């Protein structure tokens, strides 16, 4: 049994350097690695390329790293909820690459699975297709898209064990499982860290082979972007 446990977020991100490429799990601010984002903020590394479906909100998630101008480039599918992001983008301080959500998910999956490129119909005939190879299969056009990999993949899970096996909860799963496979170093923060053997192997979403470092996070805010309710 290989023990992947580190003491906490600071130790987990200790070797993240300036200009690293990071994958950060989450959809909106659901399922984001809150503790590691705080540790990166504290560490002050700059020039980061962040691959994440969204860019957080102004004062939470990746938005915090944008505010301190630690991010040089965002690779995302939708970045609409963040005013500071907009300001930096329009002023040219921040570079952004927008990718269709399914293509983003599959490029990350491909990166982890050793598939350098694949064809997808998403974006054919649009500006996303510019400069990309197009090929016809069964009468329909497809774009060649390449894998995405990162120096560090930072994911958030619900439960994990000391061997790095992970279980996600609800729609907080989103991009986390693919990202976990596509980092040279994958860091997992979990709400509950258990001894190996405590998680049912039938229920593991991310097998521990993909995870190099794991720790139990604390003080999760788990902010809600759009609190929509019906009356009790």
């Amino acid at each position: 049994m290989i023990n992947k446990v580190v003491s906490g977020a600071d130790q987990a991100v200790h070797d993240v350097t300036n200009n690293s490429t990071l994958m950060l799990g989450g959809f909106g601010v659901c399922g984001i690695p809150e503790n590691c984002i705080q540790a990166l903020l504290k560490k002050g590394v700059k020039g980061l390329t962040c691959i994440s479906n969204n860019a957080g909100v102004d004062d939470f998630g990746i938005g915090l790293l944008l505010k301190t101008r630690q991010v040089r480039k965002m690779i995302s599918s939708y970045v609409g909820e963040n005013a500071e992001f907009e300001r930096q983008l329009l002023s040219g301080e921040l570079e952004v690459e927008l990718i269709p959500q399914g293509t983003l998910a599959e490029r990350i999956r491909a990166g982890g699975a050793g598939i350098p490129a694949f064809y997808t119909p998403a974006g054919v005939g649009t500006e996303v297709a510019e400069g990309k190879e197009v090929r016809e299969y069964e009468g329909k056009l497809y774009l060649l898209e390449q894998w995405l990999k990162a120096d560090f993949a930072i994911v958030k899970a619900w439960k994990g064990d000391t061997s790095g096996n992970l279980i996600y909860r609800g729609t907080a799963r989103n991009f986390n499982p693919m990202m976990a496979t596509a980092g040279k170093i994958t860091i997992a923060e979990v709400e509950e860290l258990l001894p190996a053997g405590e998680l049912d192997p039938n229920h593991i979403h991310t097998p521990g082979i993909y995870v190099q470092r794991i720790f139990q996070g604390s003080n999760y805010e788990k902010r809600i972007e759009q609190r929509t309710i019906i009356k009790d």
Partner: protein
Amino acid sequence: MLDKIGIAKRIAREVRDGMYINLGIGIPTLVANYIPPSLNVVLQSENGLLGIGPFPKESEVDSDLINAGKQTITMVCGSALFNSAESFAMIRGGHVDVTILGAMEVSQDGDIANWKVPGKMVKGMGGAMDLVASAKNIIVAMQHCSKEGASKLLKECSLPITGIRCVKKIVSDLAVLDVLPQGGFKLIERAPGVSIEEIKNATQGELIIEGEIPEMIF
């Protein structure tokens, strides 16, 4: 002329028993409220859920459970959760029966523009390009004209497009129209109180009118 709820109600009539459906943000989300309870359908959320339920009660709110619009939701009985790559595998793989989404413009060839207005803040396409490139049936909910009165049903889209030759049906505030495979908007129904003349004037692309055009029934 239909309001947003009217458009949602009319689109709900396109839903058939047993369908797996992806609903976009805005009017399409409202469609869920008007699907007859006698139909068994499953709503897909592209962040990773089959079986979207109603919004939660205050006591049921779960920050780990949101839809693609980042709203808190519940799950219906028999739901399934999965990652975003799997979610788009079921979309691209043609397993989702119908996608209902909004549009800024649609062309008579079925091209759709709904993600970017040059010169304004670009928020990104999210899952829209994957959805329109893949769904077997795409129904668009939209306003027939801009606030300034310019037609949004065009010969060619003027805005950057999201996908080509993909829209099958449009439900606007004025009419229901099919986009024909060979091109052209075929008028199917008029909104209550709307004349054919009004629809003609509001449609810049080729409008095909054959026989009597009935008023919508709800």
